[in-house]
């Protein structure tokens, strides 16, 4: 909510010209989400400080929502840090109130904007995902001296440690326009929170503002990614709502989109996901499967590969998430698919723990990286549905090999590769499970490694191919 800009340039009061704001006045600027105030807590020849204070009207944040079905219709937005934190909303106000200064124009003192001035920028509460270190990585390459002040989460709960906010003070010699544009672009990057009310146009504007310095910034990729990750996820609304009912983070169940690590073998390409799909295809061909059921098809990557191969005359993709099925439908361009190909494809919303007659009549079923997303207590239901009821001639199951995790840098001991994984099995555990399932339902099973194979830890992915 607050930014102070101080300079010791002589005369310091030139700051008023640069900002186009008179040091002896208190000015108000109406914003879409409240009121911005600009005033000068100090104004001398040797030192001058301007303050931008943004008062956010919480009610205005609500008014922008279009309907009760939009994702911001969640409890989180009624109690949020926007009124206090220097977030993307603050950046928007900054861009508006100091528009002329950002452009580097000053009609009264045309030579001033190009002068590098000794500046100190101070923000008492900057939401900083990635910690103070990340703030330094963003600002230091631009020539700022960075000082961060930790903000405790709650003095009444001392054990809870520090909050995600820091007090941020930047000191350095810069053109004022550049200094403002650094904040304008990087504050939202530091924030990284979801701001459904910032639309894509704003993002475009922010990126344009980075011209001249963003391209050469060492963290360029991360900066860009954080913008892209803020795309809204409208289709998850109903699921988010159910998480919220349970006092969970509404985004928690979007686990499907946030792997803990990038699952790449140390020896790099082809990507593990590619190799996995390839190995599954090979197993299906070896089984001479013509109709294939892809359970947990997600966005339909394997389904697409199966459709490319005329051996597979009937491909059924199933996912428990209707959003995933919709996404697969769009990604595979089902609407414009040639009729012959389309007639080979069926996409279904369904669940592997509910018996489903639509699963019957396939030569083979695939559970590619699916079982580890099922609670162990529900595995028997899945086994009955797939092996007992759908009972195709062949079933191909892939799952991570926990032993291999040791080779992933940045993955803690005992951690799993994905936040939604309910378990990751070592080879012995997977094989004993698979043998038991095979014995119960009258299958034979063989095992194959997928991806880079380490002599000690085995392959990254393990695969079981069941036959009956």
């Amino acid at each position, binding site marked *: 909510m607050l930014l102070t800009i101080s300079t010791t340039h002589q005369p310091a009061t030139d700051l008023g010209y640069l900002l186009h704001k008179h040091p002896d006045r208190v000015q108000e600027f109406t914003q879409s989400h409240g009121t911005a105030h600009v005033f000068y807590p100090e104004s001398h020849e040797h030192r001058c400080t301007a303050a931008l204070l943004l008062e956010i009207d919480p009610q205005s944040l609500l008014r922008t929502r279009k309907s009760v079905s939009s994702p911001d*219709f969640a409890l989180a937005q*009624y109690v*949020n840090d926007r009124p206090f934190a220097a977030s993307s909303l603050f950046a928007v106000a900054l861009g508006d109130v100091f528009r002329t200064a950002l452009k580097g124009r000053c009609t009264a003192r045309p030579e001033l904007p190009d002068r590098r001035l000794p500046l100190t920028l101070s923000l008492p509460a900057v939401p900083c995902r990635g910690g103070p270190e990340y703030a330094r990585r963003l600002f230091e390459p631009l020539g700022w001296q960075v000082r961060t002040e930790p903000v405790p989460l709650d003095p*009444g*709960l001392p054990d809870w440690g520090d909050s995600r906010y820091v007090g941020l003070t930047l000191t350095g010699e810069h053109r004022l326009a550049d200094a403002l544009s650094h904040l304008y672009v990087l504050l939202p990057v530091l924030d990284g929170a979801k701001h459904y009310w910032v639309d894509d146009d704003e993002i475009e504007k922010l990126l344009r503002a980075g011209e001249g310095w963003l391209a050469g910034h060492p963290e360029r990729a991360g900066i860009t990614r954080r913008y892209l990750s803020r795309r809204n996820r409208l289709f998850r609304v109903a*699921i988010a709502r159910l998480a919220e009912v349970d006092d*969970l983070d509404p985004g928690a169940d979007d686990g499907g989109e946030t792997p803990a690590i990038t699952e790449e073998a140390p020896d790099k390409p082809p990507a593990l996901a590619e190799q996995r799909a390839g190995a599954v295809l090979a197993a299906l061909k070896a089984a001479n499967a013509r109709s294939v059921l892809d359970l947990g098809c997600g966005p339909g990557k394997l389904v697409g590969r199966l459709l490319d191969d005329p051996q597979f005359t009937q491909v059924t993709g199933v996912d428990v998430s209707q959003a995933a099925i919709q996404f697969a439908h769009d990604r595979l361009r089902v609407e414009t698919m040639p009729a012959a190909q389309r007639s080979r494809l069926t996409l279904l919303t369904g669940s592997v723990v509910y*018996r489903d007659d639509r699963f019957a009549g396939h030569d083979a079923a695939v559970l590619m990286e699916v079982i580890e997303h099922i*609670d162990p207590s*529900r595995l028997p239901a899945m086994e009955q549905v797939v092996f007992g009821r759908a009972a195709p001639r062949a079933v191909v199951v892939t799952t991570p090999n926990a032993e291999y995790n040791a080779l992933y840098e940045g993955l803690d001991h005992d951690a799993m590769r994905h936040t939604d994984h309910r378990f990751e099995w070592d080879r012995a555990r997977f094989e004993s499970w698979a043998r038991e399932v095979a014995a119960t339902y009258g299958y034979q099973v063989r095992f194959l490694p997928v991806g880079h194979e380490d002599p000690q830890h085995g392959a990254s992915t393990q695969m079981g191919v069941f036959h009956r």
Partner: protein
Amino acid sequence: MTHSTEPAPAGPPPVLSIPETGLVLLVGISGSGKSTFAAQHFKPTQVIASDYCRGLVSDDENDQGASTDAFALLHYIVNTRLRRGLLTVVDATNVQRKAREQLVRIAKDNDVLCSAIVLDVTETVARHRNKARTDRDFGDHVIARQRRDLRSNLRRLDKEGIRKVHILRGPEEISAATIALEKSWNDKRHLTGPFDIIGDVHGCRAELESLLTELGYRIESDPSGRAVGARHPEGRTAVFVGDLVDRGPDTPGVLRLAMGMIDSGDALCVSGNHEQKLARSLKGRKVRVSHGLAESLEQLAAQDDDFQRRATAFCDGLISHYVLDGGDLVVAHAGLKEEYHGRSSGRVRSFALYGDTTGETDEYGLPVRLPWAEQYRGRATVVYGHTPVPKAEWVNNTICLDTGCVFGGRLTALRYPEREIVDVAAEHTWYEPTRPFLDPGDSAPATGTVRDPGLLGISDLPAGADGADHPGGAVETAFGRVRVPGQNALAALEVMSRFAVDPRWLLYLPPTMAPAPTSADPALLERPAEALSYYRGEGVDRVVCQEKHMGSRAVAVVCRDEHAAARRFVPGTLGTVYTRTGRPFFRDPGTESAVLAELRSAITAAGLWAELDTDWLALDGELLPWSAKAAGLIRDQYASVGAAGRAALPAAQGVLRAAADRGLDVAALAGRVDRRLDGIEAFSAVYRRYTWDTDGPAGLRYAPFMVLAAEGADFSGRDHLWHMSVAERLAEAAPMVLPTRYLAVDTTDLHEADSADSWWRGLVSTGGEGMVVKPLGGPLTKGRKNLVQPGLKVRGPEYLRIIYGPDYLDPERLATLRDRRLGRKSGLALSEHKLGVESLARHARGEPLWRVHEPVFGALALESEPVDPRL
């Protein structure tokens, strides 16, 4: 039967008997009077005329060019009606064999009987009638051809699969004829019992006599001491599921007793496969003498001729299944799927006698059967035998009573409608089974099928959950139908599949709760007066105000031992604690079992197992602290807001002071910043109260406020004083259990209303969340129309800071917030409540899992409905 074209000689007017639910073909040339006849004897909706269908598809009832489409439509309608079990009359000429064949096929596909009524008039009559009609202009040659077609195969109609053929000759006979609708042989819906259904006897006469005695029947004997009948003093009826004969020591004795009971109206019997085969053999057909048939033949050969004749006729005349008790009970030897109830066809009989066989045989040479019972979803209870099982157990409202008496097991009966099992042990192993049947330690029945009533199907869920673009389904509850939109069902499918506990635990999901109507006092959003006035307006005089604990909702299902868990829930467990959306409450199994252990010992100490006659108990309550489950939320959401405010606001105060010192006019702004900081401090104080350290079970408190269910019992009918008293007894027994303070209030007494207000103010001024006002009579309390809200929450003004924001008490903010729409929330709360009590009732009645799951799933689906989350 004469086949002359002359009018039949005058006789008594013909009475045509027609199966009540079958297909009737009217057969006759154009102008024979079919439509007139149909209109006289059947309802307009029962008659499907080809002319009418022709009109529907072409706007011209006589457009012969539209016949193909018209008949396709006619067949569709006929098929739909027959599938739904409706009597259907086809008004078309039906003179060609090919036309009839298709209709006969449709009747067979729907397992109903087909009959024909032939209206046989002369060409002269027909021609004359057609001439009188302006809309028919086809030539005489058409009628001549039709009549040729008709006459050419009139005599062979009954060879075409038409069960009954009635031929009416000439206009007089046609107009004199009357129709008598006859019930199907298997339709005994008018018999309402009570019944004692008896499993496969297989010649075990001594055991049968013991069982009948055990059931309370008095056995009647003939002079030589042989049992020839049995009668229950209270007029109960025995029903044999078939397989009275073969294998055992005294098939004639069993037949004598059973036949006597049936003759005197004391028993019914359906045919078993063994009776069928025995009858064939006795009638001299060549059958393979195996599976104990030899014993029967030998024993019967020792009987006199008269008895042999009677036994043959008896076995031969048995019906393959009965529909009893208004359609609520079906008895068939090998069971019967719902589509076949009350139907008649070869495959229905075959199913009833042999089960749903695949045609394959297993390693013992016995037929492989499909687990039809597991997929059974019908309303009627199906009782059967045929396949020996170690123990009679309910599977989806079906039960197999063949407990292998002849193999040394037991002879079992089911009392209906009491649903009690009565059985006696076999006196010997009379016959060695082909396949080991009582394998100790192996609880899986040796039926060649895996029975798992715990497996749910996608088709068990409300429509739309399967992703078919569907507006949604509905759940029927005792308090009305609750609609479940398809989109919500999809969300529930994902959450149920990915996150929920084993569905066998989910006997109930707590409904959402509406707040009291917005306070008339402009300084508050909620207060007790409006909640009391709501109940008063509904005609409810007594309510209970309960302290509202701020924690997380938790349903605890506590089993006394593993045996209870295995029988009623999930084997190898002792209970579970789950959240509002059916997720496991605890990630750590150790914490869960410690919490369950403490609750279990509290239930034991309070003496509730015996008092409630149960070995498990389900409680609904609040688990504290809030931080136990919501630590992440408190940290990321609430504490973070506090942190940001405490960092930014004092800094703002600092620069504003400096600006003021310079003489700038920032007083108004500074005042607002000061107020915001006060708001933030008050806000942080709220969530801190609901936060304390826990370590596993240490530090956790559970505040139960309702006893949901126990074995065979659903406590939604009990009043809240009872529920509170149970909670108090549990709290006395275990330190983990937190009692709930409460106050009973008469809504019509304003003094009591005042004391409720003071009581509430006392709770909220010391940091409480507030209270819940409930109808004292309990969750099933009805108001003016239907159920009233099971509770209304009245939250305190400080607590609401974490809901509406730290500054919501600013007068202008509050004025805006007071305009809140409660209708949707209240509607959802009631709908979910109906689903909740429905699932408890179904569970208590011992209904199958899919029936309990349906309303539970519906409640989860409704929770995904968009509604203002602050309410």
